[in-house]
């Protein structure tokens, strides 16, 4: 077919930010997948609860200390996370570098508390279905923290390399921050489920 140019796109940017970036949409789609998985885990938790004569079965409710500290830490990490995202939007390389180092630490610190969350459940994964689902939820969320931590570490290295000062990287930083927010928000219903539902 003969082609007739009717539109000139040569003035468009070479890379879109935010909703004009496929990577942003890809991140959202992955969050939808992960969100479905977390939702299912919660559904399984309540399903097993509905079958049990009392809940939690043969164990006291989990200790609150480690889990609550982790929750507070995660919530607090949202502040630097939002700041990094904003700096990335403004393309401030120096601040983004520092922010990513801070966010790497914010990814490591919760893991220290997470280690103590497992024994705080007073049940092993192989003792009962209750233990299995609680350990699975904790494990599933831990995998998300670790994944985002590695992502943040690699991004931090990238921003210190010659590839750092590039709109594309700033977009990556924003998407990474978006994903961390998801990891934090997804934890809240899981936390309520694991720690407070047994106390109802």
């Amino acid at each position, binding site marked *: 077919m003969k*082609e007739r140019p009717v539109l000139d*796109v040569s003035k*468009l940017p070479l890379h879109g930010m935010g909703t004009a970036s496929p990577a942003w*949409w*890809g991140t959202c789609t992955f969050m939808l997948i992960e969100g479905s998985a977390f939702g299912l885990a919660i559904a399984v938790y309540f399903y097993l609860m509905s079958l049990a004569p009392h809940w939690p079965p043969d164990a006291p409710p989990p200790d609150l200390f480690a889990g609550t500290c982790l929750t507070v830490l995660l919530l607090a990490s949202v502040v630097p996370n939002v700041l990094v995202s904003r700096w990335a939007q403004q393309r401030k390389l120096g601040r983004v570098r520092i922010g990513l180092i801070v966010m790497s630490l914010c990814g490591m610190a919760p893991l220290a508390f997470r280690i103590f969350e497992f024994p705080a459940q007073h049940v092993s994964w192989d003792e009962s279905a209750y233990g299995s689902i609680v350990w699975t939820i904790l494990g599933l969320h831990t995998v998300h923290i670790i994944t985002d931590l590695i992502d943040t570490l690699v991004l931090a290295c990238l921003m210190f390399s010659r590839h750092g000062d590039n709109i*594309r990287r700033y977009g990556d930083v924003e998407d990474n921050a978006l994903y961390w927010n998801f990891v934090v928000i997804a934890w809240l219903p899981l936390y309520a489920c694991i720690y407070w539902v047994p106390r109802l």
Partner: protein
Amino acid sequence: MMIEQRASAATDVDLDDAELDRELDRTWAARTSFWGAIATVDHKVIARRYIATAFVFLVLGGLLALAMRIQLAQPEARFIDAGRYNQIFTVHGSNMMFLFAVPVMEAMAVYLVPLMVGTRNIAFPRLNAFSYWIFLAGGILLWISFALDTAPDVGWFAYVPLSGPEYGAGKRADIWAQMITFTELSALAVAVEIVVTVLKQRAPGMSLDRIPLLVWSMLVMAFVVIMAMPAIMFESSTLIMDRLVGTQFYNPAEGGDVLLWQHLFWFFGHPEVYIIFLPAVGMVSTILPTFVQRPIFGYLPVMMALIATGVLAFGLWVHHMFVVGLPRLGESFFTASSMAIAIPAGVQIFCWLATLWSGRPIFKTPLLFVIGFIITFVIGGLTGVMVASVPFDAQVHDTYFVVAHFHYVLIGGAVFPLIAGIYYWFPKMTGRMMSERLGRWAFWLIFVGFHLTFFPMHILGLQGMPRRIYTYQPEMPWGGLNLLISLSAVILSSGFLVFFIDVARSWSTGRPAGQNPWNASTLEWAMNSPPPRYNFRRIPVVDTRDPLWSGSDELPVASGLRTDRRELLISSVVEALPEARESSPRDSVWPFWAAIATSIMLIWSIFSPWAIVWGSIPIAITLIGWFWPKGIAEDES
């Protein structure tokens, strides 16, 4: 100033068509070596591999079906023993669902969606390459285990406790579960690509109400995959955990529940049917208008029906569990919702009939298969409404009636449209037409063979023949019909044989197709056949639902894209207004290595939980290699 000049010199503005083709060819070229073939990220090449691999699995699964038919042709046959028979029907079902039907439909999307929305490659093309290798690895895992006599033998839905640690000795059930993980991982990856391609890479002007119906169906399918597949991945992982590290999810003695398995499985399993069926009806809604040479009747109702089907798909799963003793109210609800899904299906069927009625049908092979689909699917849909009723289902559950029903909806509802789609798009994919004469032979053999094979199964089911039995006694009144079915299966297979012969012959000696042999209306017919690596010399600009039927022999296009890097257009979600020029990744071997690392981890984790820890390290390394910028033009912003 220098930079600006260079940038303007590398766009397509001042180039004539031949020069532009040459420039784009260079930018989008793949290396012609072994590693070049491994590294390719061209959606068309990957889709062709996907389709070819899926059809190989179809043939293998078909051979298993024939083996079962030989065994069942007469009472107390000795062709296959009971244990092997269990493996055969398990592998047949798992293979057809997870290694053929879903992948082949997604592969059609991978091939067609970028072409139909007018872009140069799928979104996340490296993820696409990764997904193919993962799919291949999952398929090889299942079939090697079958060859080694260690294949799963617990049925394609692997109900616990049969598949649990107590009864499922060895690694058979683990292989089933991990094959699931492989194929769902690849399906989820493709779903992400389809969603982003459809939402963000449409040609300027292709607003939501101008998207071709096939693309709509693939979009809905992708969302269904995203919402449904996590359930089965959760399930396959927890099954392996129950078997390997002693979790108690499915052990009633420790507070677990076997019905939890069925809920999770069918929460995925019923949408799975629509994951297969939605692309098929999308194909029908695309092929039908071409062969009556008029736009589809009722674009909007058909599109709404696709979305409604996708939503309702999640409200039906319990109808697979009517005999397990659930509360009556729940059963009534799921009966109602199961019958409700007949409404969007009916809307589409009436729109297709109206399209046929108001045009002049041209009875070429693709249209024959489409009509075969409508007839077969209506029969399958009717038995679907029957088994949606609890008292009826209680009678025929686990009998050949159900086997007949789901083969009618899956083969009639998906494979017929798929073959129509192959006949229809083969000219685009290869540049050559398939044979009309062999196509008619294939259609009539498959159509007649199919109905002779599967219709009598309804009667066998009503006579009480259970599914999954490896033999039956001569006193049972089933022998005659079983022999008829087995003989008819030969007719059906010969139809497929003719189809494959046609594909092989036409591939090398078919009549050249040209750009648009069917005079179709959608964008994939606007370029040469097979399409060049970059799909579109210039990105088309769309102002109608049927861009190639606008009455003009000119294609409105956008100019100003760069030619020195792989570049395509990003547009807004609703109106498809251009937002940015985005680069599309170059070829890379990293997705292949990432898939190898992932496969090692997944297979290792059947044997040791530590595989998750140690196996993740190579995956992380390959992913870093994959994403680390290489300082090329595609990285500019």
